[in-house]
């Protein structure tokens, strides 16, 4: 029943009036269509432009901000650490793309009056926490670099940097995709068109980049 507390009063009324499915609620089948359903425009006017969403959607956005923040932080090493040209181009694009997506997630959460984590991910284990070397800390998001991995990346130079960057970013991207998969397995999740489009784009972009990184990695020896 967790979905309920994320729906505003206005939406609850609209849902009742329109016979909307109570997303995230404990139902097993969709209710029958109402006799006189609202048009999409009427529904938007009734719910104030906030489509139904669930606790899983909120948790995903809140977590993914920190996840993206780490990718942006990793990309920032490329220039000072002497990455090769292709890796710098890749890192540049990742930095822009994931910064823009952080903006989107902050906006999405703000509009729904949900808690917004810091955009630099400083609430996550990236800094300070003494987690195990290379191992995911309990509760950590999939694909997140451990402090030891971050340290390795920060110290690596040139071709060694390329290798660690690509290896860790593939791990990081696979983690993001796993987070989307997890979300899509949650009841009623991603029914908001904005969420659905966002997660579809995250998967499409990062899947493409993983392929590209695998290609680059093939020509670099393990340090």
């Amino acid at each position, binding site marked *: 029943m967790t979905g309920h507390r994320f729906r505003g009063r206005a939406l609850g009324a609209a849902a009742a009036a329109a016979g909307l499915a109570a997303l995230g609620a404990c139902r097993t089948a*969709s209710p029958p269509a109402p006799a006189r359903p609202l048009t*999409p425009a009427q529904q938007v006017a009734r719910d104030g432009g906030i489509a139904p969403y669930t606790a899983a959607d909120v948790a995903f956005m809140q977590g993914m901000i920190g996840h993206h923040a780490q990718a942006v932080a990793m990309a920032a090493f490329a220039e000072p650490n002497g990455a090769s040209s292709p890796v710098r181009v890749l890192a540049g694009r990742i*930095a822009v*793309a994931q910064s823009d997506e952080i903006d*989107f997630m902050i906006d999405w959460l703000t509009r729904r009056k949900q808690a917004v984590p810091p955009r630099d991910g400083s609430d996550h284990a990236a800094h300070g926490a003494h987690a195990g070397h290379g191992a995911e800390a309990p509760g950590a998001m999939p694909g997140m670099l451990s402090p030891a991995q971050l340290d390795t990346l920060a110290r690596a130079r040139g071709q060694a940097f390329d290798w660690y960057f690509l290896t860790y970013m593939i791990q990081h991207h696979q983690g993001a995709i796993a987070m989307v998969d997890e979300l899509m397995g949650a009841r009623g999740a991603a029914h908001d068109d904005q969420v659905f489009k966002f997660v579809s784009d995250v998967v499409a972009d990062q899947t493409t980049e993983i392929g590209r990184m695998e290609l680059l990695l093939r020509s670099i020896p393990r340090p």
Partner: protein
Amino acid sequence: MSSRAVFRRRRAITAALLGATLGLLPDARPLGAQGTPPDAPVPDKRVGLKGGWYDAEQAAWNMRLVSTTKPSPAFATPTNPADPRLTNSDLAFQGTLVFQGNYSGWQVWDVADVRKPKLRTEFVCPGSQSDVTVYGTLLFVSAEAVSGRVDCGMQGVEPEVSPARARGIRIIDISDVAKPRAIKTVQTCRGSHTNTLATDPKDPEHVYIYVSGSAGVRSPDELPGCSAASPDVDPNSALFRIEVIRVPLARPQDAAIVSSPRIFEGLTEAQRHGDAPEDRRPRREGAPTRPSVAGRGPTQCHDITTYPAVGLAGGACSGYGILLDISDVKNPRRITAVADTNMSAWHSVTFSNDGSLVLFSDEWGGGSSPRCRATDRYEWGADAIYRRRGDALEFQSYFKMPAAQTRTENCVAHNGSLIPIPGRTVMVQSWYQGGINVFDWTDPMRPVEIAYFDRGPMDTTRLVSAGHWSAYWYNGHIYGSEISRGLDILELQPSAHLSANELAAARLVRFDRFNPQEQPQLVWPAAFPVVRSFTDQLARNTAMDAAWLREVTVAVDQAEKAKGAKRADALAALGARLRQEGARQADPAKVAMLAEAVEALAKASR
């Protein structure tokens, strides 16, 4: 330095770009050097426009807005600008009807009077993206979202597995466009992000729909056979393939998937690997499983453009641009594939009319992000133009809408189509809140912008989704699907870059039906505007012998004044002269095109 000066940079030279310092913009070049002609207005009229919904400030150069029609009532609310559920999407054309998709359904406009389009139908059916394709009495609509229903209801689909969910192609009977009737939903594993019509001249009783799906694979409990496993583990994997639906025109209710070509097979053969243990993460029940994509090539296409006249299709497929042989329409075969460090999400494809050039667009960020800021690179989120050389594609240049946009404007390369200018490759393209522009890529190394239309941001305080989803030329006008503002109709105005004759010639090319992702071949009738298009193009060439060209244009004028056989004789004589003297002129190839147009007109005048 103005933002525009920063933004406009040298045509990308890959090596230089690769060496470019991250976050900096090297190679800054003087105004007007990057994709714009020297006479373009300075400063660019698109920079600094005031924001607003229907009252946003507008800028136009060499084109004019004829009308803006707000979305139909079911998809328009005066209180909530830019709600994603009311997103207007792609367009298709038949007769005087324009079919406009919307994330919550679709609408049909009669544009017999372009100043006042009339609503014929609004059809509520949520499911996004509602990419539309029309063929006679049938309309095909893409359904992708997890909330779309077979019965088109508004209530969504709550359970993870439900027979009520519609993901795939909805087939609608539009024989009475005022009373559309849903015939069938052909369900697919990944739903349909876009769809493309493919026809086979040898098989007039069927049409084919190429389905590109880029969202997650659904559960086999919902649609039997759907598998998100690696093809190494499950040969029936729904990944790494497209779907082909065959539609019997006499019995559209029997439409079904006829093949699922693995057009990426072998693309990255050397990188294939087995499903590794680390690829298998424990999943919550109901969650789809996803294999590692590691180096397998793309798992999907975003969009496919068929060009039946040359037997080719172009696929914009994740990290690759792909050229397909579609002579066997059910079994498209990959000819070649290209990747490019600067291209992220290959999005759509346009062929030059002779098929020798292929333009791929890169919808980097999926159209939700502001990728035309002064700090964004020219070659990121742009078009990449290739030349076909045998079975290979050779990179020529990038092109991007060159005016810097704000951080609250989503902007990246999106849908467009050719404008039928004889002898040139000219295209109109949409760039979301970057507006619409028209550019010439006849010389694929030096694409140049020749007209534009743009509005200020929908919202100056935050990024909301708006702008042009698509912009297409259809029978004389440019139609723009505006995500949050409705349907824009524009017309091109004569300029130094596009003469009145060239525009008149373009308007002579008319289609009964136009699905932009099924590219039609442009064929011009024998007519004086076509002849004069070529003389106008020769006149732009400063190396031409002006006196000689003046004699030719006088001869054309005199031929037009003559009637019947006299006209035919005059044209025939001119044609002979052009053939004889053309080789000595500055642009023999263009003179030969002129000669051909003159000869065709001579023949038609008899």
